[in-house]
């Protein structure tokens, strides 16, 4: 009976939509004119697991121009013309793999309602964050190699950006459409959309840098050609999403600060990490003072104890002394510790007020908004004010110059209607730690005494991803920092 139903239904379909029988195919190429930007090398040094997986330079896939002057990674799909037809989602899932700290494929299409299987092939933590508008956003940690997640986007959306909050360079795009008529260009820049019923369609080609192109085409049944022409003179402004005419690529005067940034770090073994701030040395000295005092007391007490244990062990004929104490001794061992402790209090107070007091004049203002689980860093930009359009923003990357005080204002924020929570801003080598508290704006300051690259850690437990709330501190030479600011202002770096 079931079989008969199926056959009947099939026949009805065939009768009603003869178009399917003689479906058409759209083929074409994503052509490219102009000069391609040099493919940028991705620096994965931030996560040694990532950089260790690439023996040679790893190039960004943002713009890949094939040898035949065509573009790779262009998403082509039928935008209009299918009417209200519904197409069942395929049973096989689309796959997004995180491998070598990159998303594969970089650009892909899938159907709304189809399952998306997300893999982690790396032995490091990834955090897959879908930046979606028409679909539910998600942001999930995948700590384990071989871990799989399944997600579904139920609504069409061009395009959903996938990014990893642990590795800021990782991103990929997924085009979600309501039908199976889409393709992504490959190494020869060509695409093919098959089984398209005859009709009039609008076809759109999307590229992450060069924006979208549309074409109206008539598909009669059989094959139709539709090429798209992209040009290096038109690019999409990342912030606004609008197409703008690219000025001739200004040769950014890249200042090479790698000598300063890669300055070898002092090896300290299983002890305090090297100190790199102006006040850190004083803190270390106070630590050593306390360490000396406590070590002397510790050794004295333990040695006395050991001697007593040996000397006064119970032996035949031994008799214990009969005494209830000695008031003079009580006074001595009350007053001496009290004096030492008051001395330590005074010594600490001096340093404490230096660190917690007013930041030195001329400190560079920086704002850090901590969220679960990232550090959003902001600079004022040219106008010297926060909250204006020329603010420079980074995620997890704190750049500062050497030898100049910086003032960091710490706040806690929350995205996606969640609550903000407490974090703690910890720079081990600077010896700085300060909780970041919702509802408060707390200022801290420090001045680095050397250049180099260090880590920012979250030291207050802030939830599931607390352990990977890690940022990077890059201490530049003054010239390097100025150049970095310039490049960042031009949108060159995140």
């Amino acid at each position, binding site marked *: 009976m079931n079989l008969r139903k199926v056959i009947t239904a099939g026949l009805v379909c065939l009768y009603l939509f003869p178009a399917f029988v003689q479906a058409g195919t759209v083929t074409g190429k994503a052509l490219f004119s102009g000069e391609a930007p040099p493919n940028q090398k991705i620096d994965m040094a931030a996560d040694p697991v990532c950089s260790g997986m690439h023996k040679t330079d790893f190039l960004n896939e943002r713009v890949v121009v094939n040898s035949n002057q065509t573009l790779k990674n262009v998403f082509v799909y039928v935008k209009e013309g299918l009417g209200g037809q519904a197409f069942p989602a395929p049973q096989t899932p689309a796959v997004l793999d995180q491998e070598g700290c990159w998303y594969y494929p970089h650009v892909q299409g899938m159907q709304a309602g189809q399952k998306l299987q997300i893999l982690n092939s790396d032995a490091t933590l990834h955090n897959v964050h879908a930046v979606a508008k028409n679909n539910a956003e998600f942001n999930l940690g995948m700590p384990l190699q071989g871990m799989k997640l399944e997600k579904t986007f139920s609504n069409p959306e061009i395009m959903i950006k996938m990014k990893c909050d642990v590795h800021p360079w990782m991103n990929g795009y997924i085009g979600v459409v309501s039908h199976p008529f889409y393709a992504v260009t490959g190494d020869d820049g060509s695409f093919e959309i098959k089984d398209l019923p005859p009709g009039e369609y609008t076809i759109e080609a999307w590229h992450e840098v060069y924006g979208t192109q549309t074409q109206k085409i008539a598909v009669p049944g059989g094959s139709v050609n539709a090429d798209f022409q992209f040009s290096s003179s038109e690019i999409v402004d990342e912030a606004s999403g609008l197409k703008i005419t690219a000025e001739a690529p200004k040769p950014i005067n890249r200042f090479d600060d790698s000598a300063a940034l890669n300055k070898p770090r002092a090896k300290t073994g299983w002890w305090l990490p090297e100190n790199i701030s102006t006040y850190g040395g004083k*803190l270390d000295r*106070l630590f050593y003072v306390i360490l000396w005092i406590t070590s002397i007391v510790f050794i004295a007490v333990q040695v006395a104890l050991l001697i007593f244990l040996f000397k006064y062990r119970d032996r035949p004929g031994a008799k214990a002394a009969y005494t*209830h104490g000695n008031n003079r001794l009580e006074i001595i061992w009350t007053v001496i510790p009290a004096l030492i402790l008051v001395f330590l209090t005074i010594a600490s*107070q001096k340093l404490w*007020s230096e660190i917690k007091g007013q930041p030195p004049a001329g400190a560079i203002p920086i704002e850090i908004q901590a969220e679960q689980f990232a550090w959003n860093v902001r600079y004022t930009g040219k106008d010297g004010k926060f909250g204006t359009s020329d603010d420079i923003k980074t995620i997890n990357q704190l750049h500062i110059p050497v030898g100049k005080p910086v003032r960091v204002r710490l706040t806690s924020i929350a995205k996606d209607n969640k609550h903000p929570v407490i974090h703690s801003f910890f720079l081990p080598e600077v010896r700085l730690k300060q909780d970041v508290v919702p509802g408060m704006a707390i200022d801290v300051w420090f001045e680095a005494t050397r250049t180099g690259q260090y880590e920012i850690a979250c030291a207050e437990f802030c939830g599931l*991803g607390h352990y990977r709330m890690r940022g990077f501190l890059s201490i530049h030479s003054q010239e390097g920092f100025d150049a970095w600011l310039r490049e960042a202002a031009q949108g060159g770096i995140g």
Partner: protein
Amino acid sequence: MSESHQKQSFLRKYIFSVDHKTIGIQFLFTTLFFFLVGGALALLLRWQLAYPGKPMPVLGQVFPESMMVGGIMLPEFYNALFTMHASVMIFFAIIPLLVGAFGNFVVPLQIGAPDMAFPRLNMLSYWFFWPSAIVALSGFFVQSGAAATGWTAYPPLSAIEGTGQTLWVVAVIMVGASSLMGAINYLTTILNMRAPGMGLFRMPMTVWAIFITSVITLLATPVLTSAMIMLLFDRTMGTHFFLSEGGGHVLLWQHLFWFYSHPAVYIMILPGMGIVSDVISTFSRKPIFGYHAMVYAIMGIAFLGFIVWGHHMFQSGMNPTVGTTFMLSTMLIAVPSAIKTFNWLGTMWRGTLRFTSAMLNAIAFVSMFVIGGLSGIFMASTAVDMYFHDTYFIVGHIHYVLFGGSMFAAFAGVYYWFPKMFGRKLNEPLGKIHFALTFIAFNCTFFPMHILGIGGHMRRIYDPMQYTHLQHLQPINVFITLSAFVLGVSQLILLVNFVKSLKWGEKVGKNPWESNTLEWQAPSPPGHGNFETTPTVYRGPYEYSEPGRSSDFHPQSEAA
């Protein structure tokens, strides 16, 4: 008729008992069980810290997918583990072990009372205690998992996490109620039911310690309870006591929480100090050195303990000037602790030390408490704390106080009073093996944590290998974990000894340790009502090696 009567009396005698000794032993069994549970939780999380992302052999396959995938621990589970480890150890093992078990069993006996002042309230205290632990642990079986915001449960995080957190809050309110009932009972009993002649300054140090501890409990616990209720309201009724967006203040929780929880550290250490004083004096065969100083030091700790809570908040965003005030009080609280240490040394000086298992554990307490006390000074300094706050240094510090201190004292108490509880001794050779292994493994486990902290290792992180600045410290993590496993396995020796000695231990008379305090004048174990005749007290508790006597001890109740 007689049969049903017997059955009822079994229930009344062992289950719903109002006898302080039975309740004390109930507390002892239950808390030792939770001590093993808390230890097991610690071992699970130690595996992850030493071998992050590696499947746990054998055991890993037992856990459901929500906790471990293919034997590999998930961060959700790790977070629940460190939260529940601390909560179980603090709320369900150490506090009720020292106060509930020893307080109950020892206090009426040592003051010569037939029972506690309020026997039914006493029973109720136990029946609030163990269900609270079940409520908290049941979080592991709800969908969101157990509470996972640390035992400090800082909001806003604790206000937004899943159902397990609600269970945790309810459990803490219940266990708080249990402690309050106990505290009221100890205070009343000690003030009103002392035997004739038992002046306040003839009380053994254990009684003094429980007395002062009860005062702390009575003053601090209501604050914790109200904070918990506010948190419960924030979670369930949409109030904003601790949420900044509704006009609440995030730091309010920390003030209220630490106003209880700092004194709670003394709730966990003072009874231990009392027990250790009794044990050291007995086995040194010498009066305690500076009895009055010892009592005043306990009072000093209790008083100062209430004005130091802000030292947990130096880096919290609290006004730095307020931090300075708390630094001073915190530094000063080290003074009474120093007084106590020197007096214990003074007690052993020129004694004749008998190295029983109880004595060995008491000596370990003194030695380890010194480390725990001295390491605290680093954090007492506001400036140095800026680096060490929330690192493993503080994890090492707290374990030297709570394991090196409280737990060694508890072990000393177990070895010391076991004969009084059950009429039989624990096996001494097994006791010494247990002590030696525990002492070594304890130091190997917790001392290296200071080194991790000095290296900048943050606490409460699921995978230290995420940070390049921590990777070179990883061998220390492996060493700590291996030591922790030895430490865990060593506790099974105590378990075996305990169970074995209940049945086959060497039988003892009234006073196996030749001790002075009143409990040793009662039969072992004491019957209902404790003493055959109400004792009269003629002298202080520590008159050992009095010149001119043939025996080297002089019981408090001996007329001449």
